[in-house]
């Protein structure tokens, strides 16, 4: 008999060969935990190669899930449990595993051949090198095959069900229900009844293995986390972004036209949106990124919500067209799911190094609005905000997410209809000026006094025929103008329009109100920074925290906030891009903390950074 132990949180990492189905296993485990009411956060980590050679280190794919009875801010710094489906998965992940953690290994894969593939001269299961961890050797493959002995399936098919065995076992260990996975499998294999039954049997067998073998003496329970009441679902950043765009278009009552060219990790946005035709979403898979943004801009010119989605290298190709959209002053939403760069870089890993490209990566003075999502579910709100700014101010908006947000997931409290912001778009229908002869005419560059947005008349509107282009235009009339003073005026007007976009003030989280150190972040560092702050505060540290969503324009109170702290530290997954901007703009000596490993910061790492800076402040006050 096993004993049941209550714990407050756990981090599990499923790791195996890319063909082992670890992403699916992790996904299912996550859903089952979400339904139990745990708060959670996930981090998939997969190789750039679709099928790297089997059993090798480059072929290792993993999925980490952190779930708890309290609010969860990150996918967890280090796993408490590693499920290693082969020697490569063990070797690739052991370094992240604190001593004492649990390792469940599939011993069947620890053959001479597989061991030598990853450079193990001797099996680590036998040579004592794993002494500091709690190792559970389980012949996962052979038990699965045995459990499926009665099935009329080939050995390969039987072996393939071993991930469900692992899921069954882990579900037993952490007292997760199996119903969700059963229903999921029933849908997935509706047309393959044999495979369905085999997977269900493997799932059951894994569960039974935990229950009946002596190997696992403890079962764990993690109570639900306190969360705001409401209906929740689990959501990844890329799904949330797609839904945010669709929602904004629906609220505006306008068609959404996506022009896109496949690129990791942004392709899922194209996939997700191409399934939403019933919401009036049109997707165009163009011949390249330039055509993709071109078709989106063409659609915007026609009065649709033009959107293009890409990652860093694609954003580079789109620069010239973003510049055209700046000059045309048409709404355009550009989503950059950042990945490791430069060039092809780390296609499946995360980074925040496209900030300066987004801000300035165009010729001429070419200001655009830039916003960054802070968590997978925040991608929904950020996408709506991007559409709202683009349509209200007739400007390109670059929304920065990243690989971590795109593929990571977290529970999302579903908004009700009336919680959704409205997106109102007004087209010009009447002349707005008179010509020299007093005839009413339409001048496309007459601006709204409040927003500085230009009048937007779409083709098909009688009497408002006009031409726009990338050549400088005369203020108001929009006619071609090479006049020096007019150019100066227009350059400043375009900048003033962006600077005048209404953005909320930056909120600071400083429970005591007397912190001298501020940790500032932007984008996907939200979770790790908040978790680090929590850790530091738990040890008595006084530290304030703030997170920027609006990068262009920045909140009006930002300078004041920065200046009101003795020290400001800014962690970024780049070499200090936002720090550079803030130093230049506000003359504040921002302390930059950077790492570009393709992975999010850990909370422990950042908590140490916080403490270091507190120490400096402390020393300073003593001196």
């Amino acid at each position: 008999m096993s004993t049941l132990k209550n714990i407050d949180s756990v981090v599990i990492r499923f790791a195996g060969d890319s063909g082992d189905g670890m992403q699916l296993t992790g996904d299912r485990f996550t859903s089952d935990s979400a339904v139990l009411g745990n708060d959670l956060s996930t981090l998939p980590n997969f190789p750039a190669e679709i099928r790297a050679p089997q059993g090798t280190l480059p072929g290792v794919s993993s999925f980490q899930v952190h779930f708890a009875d309290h609010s969860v801010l990150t996918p967890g710094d280090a796993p408490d449990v590693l499920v290693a489906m082969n020697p490569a998965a063990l070797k690739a992940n052991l370094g992240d595993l604190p001593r004492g953690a649990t390792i469940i290994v599939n011993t069947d894969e620890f053959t001479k051949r597989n061991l030598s593939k990853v450079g193990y001269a001797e099996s680590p299961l036998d040579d004592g090198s794993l002494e500091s961890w709690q190792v559970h050797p389980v012949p996962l493959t052979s038990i699965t095959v045995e459990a499926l002995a009665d099935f009329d399936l080939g050995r390969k098919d039987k072996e393939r069900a071993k991930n469900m065995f692992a899921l069954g076992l882990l579900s037993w260990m952490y007292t997760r229900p199996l119903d969700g996975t059963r229903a999921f499998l029933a849908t997935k294999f509706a047309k393959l009844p044999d495979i369905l039954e085999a997977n269900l049997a493997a799932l059951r067998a894994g569960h039974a293995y935990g229950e009946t073998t002596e190997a696992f003496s403890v079962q764990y329970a993690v109570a639900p986390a306190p969360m705001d009441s409401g209906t929740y679902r689990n959501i990844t950043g890329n799904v949330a972004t797609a839904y945010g765009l669709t929602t904004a278009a629906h609220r505006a009552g306008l068609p959404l036209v996506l022009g896109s060219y496949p690129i990791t990790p942004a392709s899922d946005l194209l996939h997700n949106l191409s399934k939403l035709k019933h919401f009036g979403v049109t997707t165009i898979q163009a011949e390249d990124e330039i055509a993709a943004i071109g078709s989106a801009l063409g659609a915007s010119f026609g009065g649709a919500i033009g959107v293009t989605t890409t990652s860093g290298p694609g954003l580079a190709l789109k620069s010239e067209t973003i510049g055209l959209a700046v000059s045309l002053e048409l709404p355009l939403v550009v989503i950059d799911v950042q990945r490791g760069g430069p060039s092809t870089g780390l296609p499946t890993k995360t980074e925040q190094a496209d900030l300066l490209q987004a801000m300035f990566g165009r010729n001429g003075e070419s200001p655009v609005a830039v916003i960054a999502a802070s968590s997978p579910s925040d991608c929904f709100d950020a996408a709506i905000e991007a559409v709202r700014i683009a349509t209200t101010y007739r400007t390109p908006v670059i929304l920065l997410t990243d690989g971590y947000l795109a593929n990571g997931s977290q529970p999302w409290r579903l908004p009700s209809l009336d919680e959704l912001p409205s997106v109102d778009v007004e087209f010009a229908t009447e002349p707005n000026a008179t010509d020299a002869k007093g005839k009413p005419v339409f001048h496309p560059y007459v601006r709204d006094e409040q927003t500085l947005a230009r009048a937007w008349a779409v083709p098909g509107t009688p009497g408002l025929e006009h031409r726009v282009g990338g050549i400088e235009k005369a203020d108001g009339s929009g006619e071609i103008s090479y006049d020096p003073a007019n150019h100066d005026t227009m350059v400043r007007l375009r900048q003033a329009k962006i600077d005048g976009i209404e953005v909320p003030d930056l909120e600071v989280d400083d429970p005591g109100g007397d912190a001298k150190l501020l940790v500032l972040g932007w984008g996907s560092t939200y979770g790790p920074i908040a978790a680090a702050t929590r850790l530091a505060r738990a040890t008595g540290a006084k530290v304030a925290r703030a997170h920027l969503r609006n990068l262009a324009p920045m909140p009006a109170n930002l300078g004041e906030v920065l200046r009101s702290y003795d020290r400001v530290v800014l962690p970024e997954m780049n070499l200090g891009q936002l720090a550079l901007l803030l130093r230049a703009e506000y003359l504040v000596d921002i302390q930059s903390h950077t790492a570009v490993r393709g992975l999010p910061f850990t909370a422990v790492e950042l908590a140490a950074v916080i403490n270091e800076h507190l120490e400096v402040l402390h020393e300073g006050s003593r001196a």
Partner: protein
Amino acid sequence: MSIDLGMPASGVAGVPRLPDGDKQTKRDFTSDQEVRWCPGCGDYIILNAVQSFLPDLGLRRENIVFVSGIGCSSRFPYYLDTYGMHSIHGRAPAIATGLATSRPDLSVWVVTGDGDALSIGGNHLIHALRRNVNLTILLFNNKIYGLTKGQYSPTSEIGAVTKSTPAGSVDQPFNPVSLALGAEASFVARTMDSDRTHLTEVLRAAAEHRGSSLVEIYQNCPIFNDGAFDVLKDSEDGQARILHLTDGEPIRAGEGDTARVVVRGADGNLSVVPEKGADPATVVTHDVAAADPSLAFAISRLDDPSMAHVPMGIFRNVDRPTYDDGVRAQVAAASPDGPATDAELMELLHGKDTWTVEGSMEPRA
């Protein structure tokens, strides 16, 4: 011949027309902008022809859009009183694709040059043609980069001495018609700035065609490549060189005793021979609607840099499903009951796996 998807057959079907009895004139299509091409530029003649022809379409002016790239030729939209966009170098077909796909009620035209369409924008051009987006593309070919003051272009002949090729170009040129046919274009024609009647006829057919129509227009640039097409303009010599493409007719150059026709030899190749004495069984009859583009392609290859024979007219005009109709049909089929409701949106957001929390921020015991 065509696959029936229940899609409209005319290029301007779905575009609102003027009320019966209303008439537009060239003036209605002339904007108040001062035209700024060099004196004698072929672009003037083409502009004139287009402004005169557009009223014939009987479409509402506000439903016509001209999108251009960059180049002398790409200034075109400014001079037409329709909606227009002067975009960036080479990208007009891509921009027009987005516009045409999202707005079936517009007649969308692209104006481009030989550099714009075939150098920087070559990729967009071939993909627009391949997709068969409902666009009419006017490619002004002056065999030179005009706006940047005289560098050789992808249609300049080998040996062309230009600002950037003082020792003569060593680049093999494109034949735009061959390129378009190779890119699966469903409508391909060639015409010339100086022959207004022919130009207008070709424009009419191109506008009428549903899908991408590519019209190559030989255009003289008197400043940087003057006389590039003069051999075709000299009335007698020119007539002897121009192979007239008329559907259902032999392909003939010149008249009377000196007339020449296109024949297919025993080896299958086309050649141009004196009509007198030609074996009637070998004389090629032009067929614009031939499903197989190889005849049209072979005709396009009769052309060579010496311009001894230059086929003019419509090479190919076939019906084939258009990209934009197909995309819209899928969107329409997905929403048979009209736009999605709020309830449907909420259902989407909820997905399949939800759970409910009835509590507060109070930690549970």
